[in-house]
C-alpha cells in the first residue's frame, strides 16, 4: 500500500470546518436565548456555553477514546483509556482507512460535534434548570450517551491493510449518517423529550404567555447555525473534494427549501408567515439534510428540505396535545427533522455518489431498513439513558429550581445577573 502523505488542503478545510462547527454552539445560544422570556435569557445561553467548557475537557481526558478508540475492538465503545492526544502529533487520522489529515485535526473536528449535541438538549428545559445540575448532567450524558453513540455511528475502525479493528455497530451495519442525523439530532431530540418529562412543565405553561423575548436574536442565532453548518456537513467529508462540495450545496438547497416549507405551512394553518417560523424552518432543514448531505442529489436535497420544513412545523404542535413542556421544540425540530433526514436516505440515496441505492433508485427497502435500525437504536438508547440520568440528578442534587426562583427568573436566582437593564430612573438606568 502506498503511504498516505498529509494534504495541506484537506487539513486546512477540516481545521476551518472545526472552527465553523464550534461557532454553531454560541449560535445556538442566541437561537435559544432569544426564544425564552427576558428573565431567563442568560441561563439559556449559559447552558450552551458551559457545555463547551465541560465537553472540551472530557474529550481530551477520555472522550475521544470512548468514541474513536479501536483498542477494545468493540462495536459499542472505543476504549477506556486516556486520550493521550499529546503523543500523536505526527499521526494521520484513520477512520475506516487513512485520511491525509492529522489525527488531531480529526479529533478537534469531532469534539465540536460532541459539544453541540448536549447543548441542543437544553432547549427542552428552558426557564427552570439549575445551572450546576445541568453541568453535571452534560458530563454524565456525554460519557454514557454521546461518546458511545458517536462510536456506533461515526467510528469506521482502524484499518491497516484489509483488517479493520473497532468499527462501531451502526457504521459496520451500513447505516448511513454522513454528519450526524442519528448521533447528533435524534440523540439530542430523544434526550430532550426525556428531560422535559423529568423536569416537568413550567409554572403557568399553556396558561400564561411565554413569548420569545427577542426574535432578532433568534434570527441571528439561526443565521450563525446556518453558516457554521457548512463546516458540520461539508467538513464531514474530512477532505476538500467533490463530496464536500456536494454536501455544501445540498445543505444550502435543503435549508432554503425548509424555510419555504415551514412558512407555507404557517400561512395556510395560522394565516401569517412568521420570523420565528423562517428561523425554525432553516434549522429543521439543516437538521434533516445532515445525515443525507453526501448521499443524495441536490434535487432530492430540495425535496428533503421542503418535507422537513412541513413535518417539523406540524410536529411542534404535538407537545400541546401530549402535554409535555419541550419548551423550545427540541423534539419537534431535532428528533423529527433527524428522523425525516435519516429515513429519507432510504428513499433518495444513490450509488451514483456514495453508498447504496434507495427505494427511488431501484435499491429496494434494504437501505431503508438499515436507516430505520439506526433511528430506532439511537432514539431508544438515548431516551432511556437520559431518563435514568435525569431522574438520578433530580433525586440527588435536584435538577429544577425552586418555584420562587422560577417566578423571579433563573437569571437572577442562578447567575445573579439580568440580561437587560429594563428599568428607568429608579433602577439606575440613567
Amino acid at each position: 500500500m502506498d503511504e498516505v502523505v498529509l494534504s495541506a488542503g484537506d487539513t486546512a478545510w477540516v481545521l476551518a470546518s472545526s472552527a465553523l462547527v464550534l461557532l454553531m454552539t454560541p449560535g445556538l445560544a442566541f437561537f435559544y436565548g432569544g426564544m425564552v422570556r427576558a428573565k431567563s435569557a442568560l441561563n439559556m445561553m449559559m447552558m450552551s456555553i458551559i457545555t463547551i467548557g465541560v465537553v472540551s475537557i472530557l474529550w481530551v481526558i477520555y472522550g475521544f477514546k470512548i468514541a474513536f478508540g479501536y483498542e477494545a475492538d468493540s462495536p459499542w465503545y472505543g476504549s477506556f483509556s486516556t486520550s493521550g492526544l499529546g503523543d500523536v502529533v505526527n499521526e494521520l487520522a484513520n477512520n475506516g482507512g487513512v485520511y491525509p489529515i492529522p489525527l488531531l485535526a480529526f479529533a478537534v473536528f469531532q469534539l465540536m460535534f460532541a459539544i453541540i449535541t448536549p447543548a441542543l438538549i437544553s432547549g427542552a428545559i428552558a426557564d427552570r434548570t439549575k445551572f450546576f445540575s445541568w453541568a453535571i448532567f452534560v458530563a454524565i450524558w456525554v460519557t454514557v450517551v454521546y461518546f458511545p453513540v458517536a462510536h456506533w455511528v461515526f467510528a469506521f475502525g482502524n484499518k491497516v491493510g484489509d483488517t479493520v479493528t473497532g468499527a462501531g455497530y451502526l457504521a459496520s451495519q451500513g447505516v448511513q449518517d454522513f454528519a450526524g442525523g442519528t448521533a447528533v439530532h435524534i440523540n439530542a431530540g430523544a434526550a430532550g423529550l426525556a428531560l422535559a418529562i423529568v423536569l416537568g412543565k413550567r409554572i403557568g405553561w399553556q396558561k400564561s404567555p411565554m413569548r420569545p423575548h427577542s426574535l432578532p436574536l433568534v434570527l441571528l442565532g439561526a443565521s450563525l447555525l446556518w453558516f457554521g453548518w457548512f463546516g458540520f456537513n461539508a467538513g464531514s467529508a474530512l477532505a476538500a473534494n467533490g463530496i464536500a462540495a456536494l454536501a455544501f450545496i445540498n445543505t444550502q438547497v435543503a435549508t432554503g427549501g425548509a424555510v419555504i416549507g415551514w412558512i407555507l405551512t404557517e400561512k395556510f394553518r395560522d394565516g401569517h408567515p412568521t420570523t420565528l417560523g423562517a428561523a425554525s424552518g432553516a434549522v429543521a432543514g439543516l437538521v434533516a439534510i445532515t445525515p443525507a448531505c453526501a448521499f443524495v442529489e441536490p434535487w432530492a436535497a430540495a425535496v428533503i428540505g421542503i418535507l422537513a420544513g412541513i413535518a417539523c412545523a406540524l410536529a411542534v404542535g404535538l407537545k400541546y396535545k401530549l402535554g409535555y413542556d419541550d419548551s423550545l421544540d427540541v423534539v419537534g425540530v431535532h428528533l423529527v427533522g433527524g428522523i425525516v433526514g435519516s429515513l429519507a436516505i432510504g428513499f433518495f440515496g444513490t450509488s451514483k455518489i456514495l453508498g447504496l441505492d434507495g427505494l427511488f433508485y431501484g435499491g429496494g427497502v434494504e437501505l431503508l431498513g438499515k436507516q430505520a435500525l439506526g433511528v430506532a437504536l439511537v432514539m431508544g438508547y438515548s431516551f432511556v439513558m437520559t431518563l435514568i440520568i435525569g431522574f438520578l440528578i433530580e433525586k440527588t442534587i435536584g435538577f429544577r429550581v425552586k418555584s420562587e426562583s422560577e417566578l423571579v427568573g433563573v437569571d437572577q436566582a442562578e447567575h445573579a445577573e439580568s440580561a437587560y437593564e429594563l428599568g428607568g430612573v429608579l433602577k439606575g438606568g440613567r
Partner: protein
Amino acid sequence: MKLITAIIKPGKFDDVKNALRAAGVKGMTVSEVSGVGRQGGHIEVYRGAEYPIDLIGKIKLEILAENKDVDSVINTIVKAASTGSIGDGKVWATPVDNVVRVRTGEKGEAAI
C-alpha cells in the same frame, strides 16, 4: 385648576404635542402605559401557538391647566389625537386642590 389626563395612540403623540405647543401649553408629563379598552387586544402566533395580547401600549399625557383653559386644551388634544378608528383613547379632567412650584414656593394658579 384641573389635571387633564389623556390616553392616546403612540403614533399620534407628536401631533398632539405639537398642537399643544402651538396652543400655548407650556408643560406636560408623558409616560408610556399599557391598558385595555373597547379596542381589545390582538393575537400573536409563535410556532403555531396562539398568545392573546390583552394590553396595548398607549401614551399618557398629564397637563395642569387653569379652569379657563381646560376646554380648549381638551379640544386641542381630541382634535390632534383623532384618527376616527377604535382605540383613539380618552381625555378627562379632574379637580386639583393646590399646586406648588418647588423652586419658588409659588402656589395655586401662579404655579402652573
